[in-house]
């Protein structure tokens, strides 16, 4: 009996006959070390070697216990920790935290500090989207735009080094205002940078966005309908790329955004359907132009005055809790701070947008080719520091 089964001769009883052969899906780790997953994200992909059947993301490789650390360190000392969550858009993280605490104690922030905060935050949004453009192109194989975008980004980082002292993790936006003042020479240089940026943005759109290969690889891929975005709680450029007009700077304004005049770009499906990867790319390009508009208005309207409001030296928050949400470069960032009256917060929870966006991957993935899956991961612009905190 055994010899007949293992004989391999064709008489219908060998194990290689047609009825006994079956195919299985191959489980492959798109592992934590991967050049295209933007950090340490592990995606367990079940594939028949070309088309993805199932994708399960596993996170936690960059967990650094941010929320637990915050329970042991006083309010001012937590700001360097907040920077390190989303290290590519650190000003947004600091701004959300400081606005939450200021709302709870009710301080008045001087006008000059508000203008400086908005200028710095919008510059940081431009820097983050420039990095997105370069890195998305390099994921899809185009090496040139990466260095063009990083050349512009380098100018922003040099400006930040003069203003705040550091290139990437600033500790600049403090409770009650900002740390250092901006001098007039630096304001002139910000204006020059903004004037030089618009032709560069046109260049990137022509070089990358209109290119036929890029359009073929990103249009009609990874369509996220508005209903899917509502179900999962997606915010930011993903929601706007699906056609929904929702920007926290307009709907629930904070700081001085009510006085500024800018538009909110929304995806329209110019090269494919609404909500595909190309729309999300185009929304971010348009957002950079709107940020330049905002910066120019702030540069015209900046007033003289102090840069720090009145905050007691030993900061104790009243008992209570607050949830403050702001629009960061990747979506909605929320801080839920619970205080029991002491010098140290009782609980700080940061709601990060990238965490919810990573949870949309299992629904978008089935049916995509593996190369398209890489394009989808790139278009949601995750930074694992924010996902894992």
């Amino acid at each position, binding site marked *: 009996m055994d010899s007949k089964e293992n004989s391999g001769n064709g008489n219908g009883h060998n194990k290689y006959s047609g009825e006994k052969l079956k195919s299985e899906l191959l489980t492959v780790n798109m592992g934590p070390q991967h050049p295209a997953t933007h950090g340490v994200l592990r995606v367990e992909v079940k594939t028949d070697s070309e088309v993805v059947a199932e994708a399960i993301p596993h996170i936690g490789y960059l967990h650094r216990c941010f929320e637990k650390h915050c329970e042991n*360190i006083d309010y*001012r*000392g*937590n*700001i*360097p*920790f907040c920077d390190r969550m989303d290290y590519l858009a650190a000003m947004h993280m600091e701004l959300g935290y400081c606005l939450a605490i200021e709302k709870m104690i009710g301080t008045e922030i001087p006008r000059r500090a508000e203008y400086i905060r908005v200028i710095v935050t919008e510059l940081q949004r431009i820097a983050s989207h420039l990095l997105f453009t370069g890195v998305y192109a390099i994921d899809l194989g185009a090496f*040139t735009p990466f260095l063009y975008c990083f*050349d512009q980004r*380098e100018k922003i980082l*040099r400006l930040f*080094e*003069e203003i*705040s*002292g*550091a290139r990437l*993790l600033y*500790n600049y936006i403090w409770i009650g205002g900002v*740390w*250092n003042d901006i001098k007039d020479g630096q304001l002139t240089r910000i204006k020059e940078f903004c004037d030089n940026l618009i032709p560069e943005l046109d*260049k990137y759109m*022509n*070089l990358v966005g*209109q*290119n*036929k*290969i890029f*359009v073929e690889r990103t249009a*009609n*891929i*990874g*369509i996220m309908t508005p209903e899917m975005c509502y179900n999962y709680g997606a915010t930011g450029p993903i929601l706007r790329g699906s056609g929904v007009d929702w920007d926290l700077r307009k709907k629930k304004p904070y700081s001085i955004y009510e006085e500024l005049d800018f538009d909110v770009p929304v995806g329209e499906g110019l090269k*494919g*359907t609404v909500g595909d990867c190309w729309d999300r790319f185009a929304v971010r390009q348009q957002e950079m132009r709107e940020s330049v508009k905002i910066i120019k208005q702030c540069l015209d309207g900046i007033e003289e005055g102090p840069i720090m409001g009145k905050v007691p030296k030993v900061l104790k928050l009243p008992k209570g809790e607050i949830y403050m949400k702001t629009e960061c470069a990747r979506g909605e960032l929320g801080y839920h701070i619970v205080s029991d009256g002491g010098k140290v917060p009782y609980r700080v929870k940061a709601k990060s947008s990238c965490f919810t966006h990573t949870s949309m991957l299992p629904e*978008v993935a*089935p*049916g*995509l080719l593996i190369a*398209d899956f890489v394009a989808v991961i790139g278009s949601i612009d995750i930074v694992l520091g924010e996902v894992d905190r």
Partner: protein
Amino acid sequence: MNTHQEELTLKKYFQNIWNGIRTTIKGLSITIKYVYDVKPVTVEYPEVREILPEGSRSRLFNDAQNCISCDQCAVACPVDCIYIASKPRPKDAEKIKTSNGTPIRRELTQYTIDTSLCCYCGLCTTVCPTESLTHTTDHEYASYTIDQMKYDYLDPEVVAWRDRIVK
């Protein structure tokens, strides 16, 4: 299915070819300008060194002569990388002051900063009352072992940096 394909007609086939040629030429006309007459932005380190701006937060330096051992920097540090030990000066010693007039009442016996733990946030320099602890712009201090990253600011070799740093 999350993808959406349209059908391919003969007209679409030739349109695709024309679009491909047109957009490639558009892209090439942008990149070909970088072949001639463009100044490279590369800084050829280490022959050319970039000068960091003044306020840049790099390695810390503590001027031990001016330190009054108040412990504020160690309390403010979020990662606890400053180790300070001090003892009170004897009552009959001469009265000395720092460079900005604060009397020195304690004597510093140990002042070590573990630079490998430091997160360069600058909170310690803000609270120093005599400004003896400052950020310098030294950024080239990699070492072979992690123990060498503990800087003892009472060591005469480190105190000798004072001539270069303190104005």
